[in-house]
């Protein structure tokens, strides 16, 4: 019998919370900010995102021909990359160079672009320029080099990332046979550290992706050979350096940015929701009318508390989910599951604490204006300027910025700030202090242990709630 009353109240409160302007506006702001940051981070940029062009210039009849393949870090074709082919009488950067031919191409949906370059006896250089989204590269090829071979290949062997696991490498082979024909039955061999070559696949098209088996350790080399029967067509090597860190950086930078936005705006959402959906109703008397209905004040108070917390959970999941989707669309990657879990738990604990504090204040203050003002001040102090406040305090006590003492003070301060619980959890999970440029350290050295984190989380969740609950029961 009682459960029905609770559910009636809960569904009403939850629906009201989900439809509240605060929830809608802040979730949209989080999504838009996150999206714009992700769009900025993942836009083509040599520092963080790999763009490649493999191409061949070959002799065709009495002319030359160009065939290029543009691809991303995963070897997937890039459409819309602009390739400019030019002929010059001299080295293109010299003042004497005259342009004899210029043609601009765009790669198609398969990543290919091709053109016939007319033979000109005056031509000394071919310039190939490649441009996509502001990132461009160019190469000047002397004609005499082109004339020495029937097919001149540029970047035929490339290291790419495994699209299902970016920590693994694959290789991409681009090959063009004589007269621009498709290759057939070209065997791809790999040798690690001077061991015997092992066949890893056969190429029957211009482009092929091959798995390399055991992964390369840092600075190790994998040599690649392309063979047709016993004839070696091409040699190359890929290196086990940290090139794929670029891709991982996208995730780390994105996660840091999203975490920053969430840790700032989710507490604001909670504070405003607590004000709009509880505090204002409590002070204005809306709750009085509901209390005259067949419901106890405990049921009503719990219903509002849980509704707002659940609404916050929905906002967090929606915001994170949208960013995940965007990240996946842009770089075919997702945030690590640990980031998702860390974010949801960290933000929810902070939200529970702030909610308890805000609802407690609703029982202690007599005007909506003072409630809103104090709530905003709490957000500004604990959410917006906490690090600045700690910085000023450390400065006042003569503690050097970024020293061990400073980091210790900063981390200890996170234990007494509910909004910083998310940062505390991130420190424990990642071993890095993201707010100070991802400084790596051992969290346990600063008291960030699983036990301390758990106790802090439970305390922040329970203590404000219990105070609110006591006031709810006892104070009219």
């Amino acid at each position, binding site marked *: 019998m009682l459960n029905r009353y609770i559910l009636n109240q809960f569904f009403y409160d939850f629906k009201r919370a989900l439809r509240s302007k605060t929830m809608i506006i802040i979730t949209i702001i989080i999504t838009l900010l996150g999206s714009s940051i992700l769009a900025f981070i993942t836009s083509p940029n040599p520092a963080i995102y790999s763009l490649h062009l493999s191409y061949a210039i070959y002799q065709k009849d009495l002319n030359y021909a160009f065939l290029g393949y543009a691809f991303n870090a995963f070897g997937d074709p890039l459409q819309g990359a602009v390739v400019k082919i030019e002929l010059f009488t001299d080295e293109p950067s010299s003042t004497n160079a005259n342009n004899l031919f210029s043609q601009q191409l765009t790669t198609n949906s398969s990543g290919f672009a091709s053109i016939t370059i007319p033979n000109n006896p005056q031509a000394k250089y071919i310039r190939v320029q490649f441009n996509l989204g502001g990132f461009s590269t160019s190469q000047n090829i002397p004609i005499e080099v082109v004339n020495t071979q029937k097919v001149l290949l540029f970047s035929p062997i490339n290291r790419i990332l495994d699209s299902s696991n970016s920590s693994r490498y694959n290789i991409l082979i681009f090959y063009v046979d004589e007269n621009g024909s498709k290759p057939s039955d070209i065997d791809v061999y790999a040798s690690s550290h001077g061991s015997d070559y092992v066949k890893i696949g056969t190429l029957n098209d211009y482009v092929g992706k091959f798995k390399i088996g055991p992964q390369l350790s840092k600075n190790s080399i994998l040599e690649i050979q392309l063979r047709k029967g016993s004839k070696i067509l091409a040699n190359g090597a890929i290196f086990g350096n940290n090139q794929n860190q670029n891709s991982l950086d996208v995730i780390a930078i994105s996660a840091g940015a999203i975490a920053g936005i969430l840790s700032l705006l989710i507490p604001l959402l909670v504070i405003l929701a607590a004000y709009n959906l509880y505090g204002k109703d409590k002070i204005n008397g*809306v709750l*009085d009318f509901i209390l005259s209905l067949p419901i*106890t004040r405990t049921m009503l108070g719990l219903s509002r508390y849980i509704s707002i917390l659940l609404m916050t959970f929905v906002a967090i999941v929606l915001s994170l989910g949208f960013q995940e989707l965007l990240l996946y669309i842009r770089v075919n990657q997702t945030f690590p599951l640990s980031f998702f879990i860390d974010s949801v738990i960290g933000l929810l604990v902070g939200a529970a604490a702030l909610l308890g504090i805000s609802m407690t204040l609703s029982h202690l203050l007599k005007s909506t204006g003072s409630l809103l003002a104090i709530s905003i001040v709490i957000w500004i102090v604990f959410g917006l300027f906490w690090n600045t406040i700690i910085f000023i305090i450390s400065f006042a006590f003569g503690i050097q910025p970024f020293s061990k003492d400073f980091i210790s003070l900063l981390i200890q301060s996170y234990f007494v700030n509910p909004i910083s619980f998310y940062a505390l959890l991130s420190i424990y999970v990642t071993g890095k202090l993201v707010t100070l440029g991802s400084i790596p350290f051992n969290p346990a050295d600063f008291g960030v242990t699983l036990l301390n984190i758990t106790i802090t989380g439970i305390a922040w969740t329970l203590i404000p709630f219990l105070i609110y609950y006591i006031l709810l029961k006892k104070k009219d």
Partner: protein
Amino acid sequence: MLDIRGITKIYGRKVIAVNNVSFQVNNGEIVGFVGLNGAGKTTTIKISCGVLTPNSGTVYVDGYDILREKVEASRRVGWLPELPIFDPTARALNLLKYIAGFHNITGTAAEKRALELLKEVGLAGLENRKLGTFSQGMRKRFALAASMIADPSNYLFDEVLNGLDPSGINFFRNIAHEFKKKGKAILFSSHILSEVENLADRIVIIHKGAIIKNINASELANIGTKTLKLVIKNVDEKLVDVLKSYGEVRIENNTIILSNFRGEPAEVNLELSKMGYLIESFNYQKTGLEEYFLSLVGEKNVK
């Protein structure tokens, strides 16, 4: 039936809002609840519907303890506050359906009941209006509809007549009579003492948090004093003797003052005319509940 038993409410540590207040409101009875501002009327009513918790004492609604059996007790009492405050963004029909849910009325039954009630209280056509756009009178009518959802057997009207136009006052007066006819118990607090006097079967007067008078139906009829003032030229002993049978006679110049007047003014007028007295001026005054109430609250221990 509402049975208020020894409730005391203290705000903070010092402010005693109500102190050991006890009285009953029986089924089919309208009890007027009067007192000055801050006397404790609203606090008593809020405790009676479970909005406030008393420091001691309790209220039984049809036998259910409002503290220990809040849900069952609240199902049996409807509250009309002086200034009903609702979620301003809620729409009238939706909020009524939500309130119906507390009484196990859901789905189409809830919608049907809500539409019926909105029509009954004169809010038909405003089903989808947001409550924030309602006037005070409309909000009171909506609060009435909300309190009537489950057709409770007890009603608490807290200063509902305040701020209403004459048609609004008439509407709530009629509703109270209707509820009474249906055998419901109604506690009706108001500052408009003439209304309370006309409406109530019984009046409970609260002052500084304590009940100072509980006036029953027979006492109510005799409350106050009546005075008849007559200006007659040919005053004689015979006239004075006749008038003495109607009250205490005092003569000032040509004016005869009949204090503690008993009887009907028209009767006196007719009798004196028949006796041949020429009445130049005839003035009848009645002091009612208001003066009685003021005299009570001005004198703390009047019983």
